[in-house]
């Protein structure tokens, strides 16, 4: 199989998956009980008023008609408008995405760095106290429900470190006086620390265990034995020869998990009242705001597929054995 064939096949598969996901998203949310109009409860919500609302929102059309209209809009790059605010879906989701991405990035970087270091040390010092500490800490954090870990942060860590427990900015910032850029930056970072740390610890466990496992396998290879026999330092053997090859499954894992966490850790955003994409989805479910839900899940689907594709292409580039 040539490189071009490989890439073309992967892209074609990705496109088909996107189409199937779009259809499933459309069907899934309309299977929920109630709709955007029944989510409204008001004294004047007579049958006549509800019929008027349904007509305004296009909910009076048949499901097939709504589906074709949706596909048609998508083909023109239009994700539709929120049933609740009537603003464009892209506008409604932009702020939550802007809030979620840096928080996710910070947590993921922390998890990758710490997970890799701990995994390498664990494998390198197999059987020692360091290995046991790394293994057990990885298992513990991997097993912890994220929302529970988040609550522990709120109850025991926030107060101790003087860190905020919610939101993305201090409530009083900018109200009576204009803050400096540095103040705003540091404030945003302070609000990101706990949710990012929670995400980081949850992911760290998984990464540490995978790196440890991959390193153990790699360190047992003949070429590593050869490197040792040649008199290379432990540092060179582990980091230059062992880790480089052990990172292949880790890169795949990171790329795959990034796709999912772009959707925003809903439970963590909920614990920290962090106004990201996760909370936006929860609100849209409450209000049966189909266009927002479809837009958010399309985003999640595209990110999973994109990162999956990147993982495949990276693997293809890093491991020549894939083409044979």
């Amino acid at each position, binding site marked *: 199989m040539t490189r071009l064939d490989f890439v073309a096949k992967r892209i074609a598969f990705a496109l088909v998956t996107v189409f199937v996901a779009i259809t499933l998203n459309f069907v899934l949310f309309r299977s929920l*009980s109630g709709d955007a109009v029944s989510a409204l409860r008001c004294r004047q919500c007579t049958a006549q008023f509800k019929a008027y609302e349904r007509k305004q929102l296009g909910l009076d059309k048949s499901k097939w008609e709504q589906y074709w209209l949706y596909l048609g809009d998508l083909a023109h790059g239009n994700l539709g408008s929120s049933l609740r605010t009537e603003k464009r879906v892209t506008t409604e989701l932009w702020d939550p995405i802007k809030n979620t991405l840096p928080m996710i990035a910070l947590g993921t970087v922390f998890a990758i760095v710490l997970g890799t270091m701990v995994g390498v040390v664990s494998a390198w010092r197999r059987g020692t106290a360091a290995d046991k500490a790394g293994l057990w800490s990885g298992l513990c954090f991997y097993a912890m429900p994220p929302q529970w870990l988040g609550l522990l942060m709120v109850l025991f860590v926030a107060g101790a470190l003087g860190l905020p427990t919610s939101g993305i900015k201090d409530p009083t910032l900018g109200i009576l006086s204009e803050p400096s850029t540095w103040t705003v930056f540091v404030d945003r970072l302070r609000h990101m620390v706990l949710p990012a740390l929670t995400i980081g610890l949850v992911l760290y466990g998984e990464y540490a265990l995978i790196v440890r496992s991959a390193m153990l396998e790699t360190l047992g290879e003949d070429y590593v034995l050869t490197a040792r026999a040649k008199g290379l330092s432990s540092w060179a053997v582990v980091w230059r020869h062992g880790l480089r090859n052990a990172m292949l499954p880790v890169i795949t894992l990171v790329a795959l998990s990034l796709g999912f966490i772009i959707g925003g850790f809903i439970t963590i955003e909920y614990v920290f009242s962090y106004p990201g994409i996760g909370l936006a989805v929860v609100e849209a479910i*409450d209000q049966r705001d189909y266009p927002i839900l479809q837009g958010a899940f399309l985003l999640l689907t595209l990110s999973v597929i994109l990162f999956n594709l990147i993982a495949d292409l990276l693997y293809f580039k890093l491991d020549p054995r894939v083409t044979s």
Partner: protein
Amino acid sequence: MSVGRKGLAASALVAALLVVTGVVAGTARTGSAAGGGSGILRLGTTNYIDSLNPFNYIESQSSNAMIMVYPQLVAYGYGAEGYHIVGDWATSWKTSDGGKVWTFKLRSGTKWSDGQPMTADDAAWTINTIVKFANGPTAVAAPSVAHATHASAPSPTTVVIRYARPVGNVLAQLEQLFILPRHVWEKLAANGGKELKTYHPELHLPMVTGGAYTVKQYEKKGTTAFIRDPNYWGSASHADAVALTYYTNGDSMIADLKGGKLDWVDQVPFEAINVVKRTKGLVIDNLPGFETTNITWNSNPRKPKNRELLDPRVKKALSMCVNRDQIISVVFSGYATKVETLLGDVALYVNPHLGPLRNDCAAANKMLDKLGYRRGSGGIRMAPATQGKNAQPAHPMAYDVITPTSTDFNVNREFQIVKEGFAKAGVKVTQKVGGDSTASYALETGSKCDAAKSVGYTGYDIAMWDWVGYIDPDFMLSVVTKGQWCSWSDTGWDSPAYDKLYAQQGLTVDPDKRKAIVWKMQQMIYDNFLYTQLVEERLIDAHSSKWTGIQSALNGYSKQYYTSPRKT
């Protein structure tokens, strides 16, 4: 490693240290008292402001926010005698023509936040616009001017409202009317008024306001900042600003209150009350609340299955086995009281002669035995077969109970106590988690609910939920009318006699006569056991001892809720 790489690594380390220092040292400072006031009052809540458009909002916090930024003709005050109507923008009012005409005198010299004069013309325009589009874009605000036909402004400080007939609760209705600046909103009323509903003033700051505050900042799921308006014609706010911050969960909110990052929370979660009480520097306020919890009985006379649950005697017997004291102590940590009326004990015209419902399971079992519901195998009673229209075969008395996930109390624990009580009566119930409010309500009404055709309310037997009532009883009385099928009705009850009384009380101007009708309606609800009223939650809020003058009872009723607090 080369010198260049070392230098880069060192620089990165220094930069990281600087950031970490800044992060840990913190940047949070309470704003200075720029205007000589008490600084910023930091209020935490688990309810968010979804909109400042009075034609398009759902959340109660939005109503509270609109009270702060828009003028109202009247508002509620609270004193030793309870809640009573007081003037807000209006200084006085009178009725004429048998109660069909209401004339309000307004304060003079008032201005909107953009400096434009605020006159009776704004009030008249707002009312006429709501009336004009009452079945469309302004439907949400229509109940505030129910039965009104026209408003006029014979002078800048006089607004006259004409009604089709005398209305019994005009002032209570008008308390929920928010006057809008005509010069901003009039253009939105063109082309069928669709934009009246879709316009969100909070997204076009600075929005033109006419209340105690202007809005400096709006974040739906973050912090909304209200700044004291120097042009406000009422008692000025002691705080320079109020920062209302939304929390998705009470744990984070209480953690911030205890950590000094908040000054006040508007509702302490019941499981956290005792912890907050023990925290130095925090003060708890314990007041009568408006929220009542209940067992909801499907009372649709056309329901096809389990029709034994339409018999008030059966419902009463089962209710007598529920230990409400246990609910109060376990679910609400003691911060609730037993309640008998759907209106809640804080409302006007509460009927004091209802019940009380005794917790006497022995007597309840005798009642059920006498009615012919014998115990079968496993101790579960059997409903005997019936004949005629709506005939049903003999069947065990075993039912599902719908519980929503959207309650602000532990409904699962409350269900367990109800389940234990019903089991003592020989009735088995199984919890059916309904999901959020929308999903749970859809389970009650069915997907094809149609009030005009009397279709709906056939797929459930029992639910457990809550109501947040109002001071005026009109709304709560309406929720069991046929007119609210598929909207606010969750019992599916259909009683023409009751509906007639409901219409009548709305048009009865004499307070004593109205009270008599309202008492009778409460008795009908109670006698038919549409609900088993369980408890009424206490309103528990908490604030820092550094602040005083907090009037918790005015939450959702008056601008003074925000303007009164001041630093000690």
